[in-house]
């Protein structure tokens, strides 16, 4: 057991996967010699060699395309998209390729690849280093979409993703790389050091896909969230004194509906929180599902607290980010409804 930041946990997952299965290969822009702009692959090329960990041209469509071909061959490619905001040139290969190969060939070929990408804001990255495009993946059948909120889950989920025979989109909330973040950007940074969820085994383990975690049990209302917003949601619970049950979905889709439904049926109230823009965000699906499955138990409308429907602005970052005040206000409205 060691204390790891999320970056170290991700690196450790890659290390374990590369070490156990010689079919695992890791590549992307600047991930080889340099070790990645966020250092997630640092040291891996030196350890596993240049043909297992390597740099690629700046062509996201090419990165996903070769990953599909490698996966069809029998490798387990783990490709990095430098920022989720840059995944769009690879979107055709993801939707028309990775997500469809198994179906269109009736299982003759499969596409077991993992696409890692940092997402989310809170680092003054402006509109092209802050996006959270998860809904563009959850709408695509055949894909799995995963987003961890802490080092332990990050490592376990990433190993599970690499071992999974389906294509997995693995979104890494970059604001959590070096510490949990509750949305109070004006307070001193908190590191992962000493945090229980940063206690990460050195070796192999997995956190199963399609399973949510109850991050904080509670009785007043159910919060459905993932990634950075798990910490913000928890902070809002402390600050409002509302006993929120916070569910960290971890696997966005396919997802663990049972955990969600059980909780909402018990609390009768539900708030959905994500950083992505609101309209047609994944929160819409969550709200739709909850009202479908828990309608007769609901005592208040399901609220969504999300990024606004604008690009992620640079200077107004903290007015955009759905921080603990906005989340807490939604808790209060939901309790008062």
């Amino acid at each position, binding site marked *: 057991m060691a204390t790891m930041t999320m970056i170290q946990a991700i690196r450790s997952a890659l290390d374990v996967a590369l070490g156990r299965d010689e079919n695992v290969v890791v590549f992307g822009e600047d991930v080889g010699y340099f070790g990645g702009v966020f250092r997630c692959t640092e040291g891996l090329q030196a350890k596993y060699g240049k043909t297992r960990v390597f740099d690629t041209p700046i062509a996201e*469509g090419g990165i996903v395309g070769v990953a599909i071909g*490698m996966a069809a061959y029998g490798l387990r490619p783990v490709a990095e998209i430098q920022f989720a905001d840059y995944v769009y040139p690879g979107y055709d*290969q993801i939707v028309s390729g990775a997500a469809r190969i198994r179906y269109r060939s009736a299982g*003759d*070929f499969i596409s077991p690849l993992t696409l890692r990408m940092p997402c989310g804001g809170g680092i003054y990255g402006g509109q092209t280093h802050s996006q959270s495009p998860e809904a563009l993946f959850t709408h695509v059948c055949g894909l799995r979409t995963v987003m961890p909120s802490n080092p332990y889950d990050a490592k376990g989920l990433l190993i599970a993703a690499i071992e999974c025979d389906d294509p997995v989109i693995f979104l890494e909330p970059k604001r959590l790389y070096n510490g949990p973040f509750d949305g109070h950007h004006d307070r001193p940074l908190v590191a992962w050091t000493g945090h229980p969820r940063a206690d990460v085994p050195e070796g192999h383990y997995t956190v199963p896909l399609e399973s949510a975690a109850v991050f904080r049990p509670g009785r007043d209302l159910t919060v459905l969230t993932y990634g950075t917003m798990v910490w913000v949601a928890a902070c809002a619970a402390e600050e409002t004194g509302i006993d929120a049950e916070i569910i960290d979905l971890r696997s966005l889709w396919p997802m663990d509906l049972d955990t969600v439904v059980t909780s909402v049926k018990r609390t009768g109230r539900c708030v959905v929180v994500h950083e992505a823009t609101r309209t047609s965000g994944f929160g819409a699906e969550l709200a739709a599902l909850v009202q479908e499955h828990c309608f007769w138990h609901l005592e208040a409308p399901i609220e969504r607290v999300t990024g606004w429907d604008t690009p992620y602005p640079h200077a107004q970052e903290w007015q955009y980010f759905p921080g603990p005040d906005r989340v807490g206000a939604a808790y209060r409205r939901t309790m008062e409804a």
Partner: protein
Amino acid sequence: MPAYPPLSLHIPEPPGRPGVPTDFSYLKVSPAGAVRRPPIDARPDDTMDIAESLVRVLDDDGEARGPWAPAADPALLRRGLRTMLLTRAFDARMLIAQRQKKLSFYMQSLGEEAIAIGQALALAPDDMCFPTYRQQGILIARGYPLVDMMCQLFSNPRDPVKGRQLPVMYTSRAHGFFTIAGNLGTQYIQAVGWAMASAIKGDTRIVSAWIGDGSTAAADFHNALTFACVYHAPVILNVVNNQWAISSFQTLAGGEAATFAARGVGNGIASLRVDGNDFLAVLAASAWAQERAHRGCGATLIEWITYRAGAHSTSDDPSKYRPADDWARFPLGDPVARLAQHLTRIGAWSDAEHASTQAEVEAEVMAAQKEAESYGTLASGHVHDASMMFDDVYRDMPAHLRRQRAQAQGA
């Protein structure tokens, strides 16, 4: 700064339109035997002259000429000819069956059979192909059962892809034939990925990738060239220039100012421009390219000049956008006739054998069709069970799809 005249936009036009016979002089045809054959470790920029000429072996009399003339066993050539005849017969029957609504859609390869079949014969049987919808010749050359192809076309319960795909979207891992994509170009970069994987694993299998002239404009063509160049991927990048996309002529993909083979050279890939209706040239160029790939010399791009003799698919009518007699006037002729002429000349074929082989392949196709139809056709409504629709989205069916399948069965 001087006063400049007003600008204007150039819109390329084809060299023929309905009512205006095609002027084929744009093709730039080299005489048979005229183009040099570089060593297999030629540097990319040392192939520009070949990318701008046309490698041809068979002359007008069916004689094999020049440095590219392959030392091919006549038995191999006879096999090639028979496979072309079989493929052509298959296409013809399936076109009729489509008109009879036994299948919803069809795409033939008429006029360009030599390319896929010649290359298939030049590859090792376990080399991997990433085809488009016009390389049924590869599947037939590799001995994939005609009945299975037809079951796919008829979408019947023996369709290997379970009725999920449009007709012609075959797949066969066992025959080194990648599942065909509806989204043009996507397979090209995937092919490079497969080739990279083979190299990473120290395997010996190489890859044959396919794309049409029109689809070279797709982003994945560029991605494929970049990655193939950077990593020296063991891949043959085939560009089948059959002159037309759907209604748009190859100049709309940039064929006016440079050959498609020149794209390869410009991107650091050794490239050839080859007569695709000359079976011997196809064999020879394919052999050169596969040797390069196998020997670690990296990728080769081959532009094959041919002509899409038929409609784009059963959904279009080419007489709306080009002269109806174009194929008959195409300077590179018909690959079947040209190979038959050559074999006859060397005493390895005859008119009688041609006729009997023709009868034989037709019978083979008819027999296959009879069997396939006995399992059902789209028209007869015998298709895969609807509940199978939910399989293979993921390896294991997630809860939401189990719920949806139950709903579908209930409703």
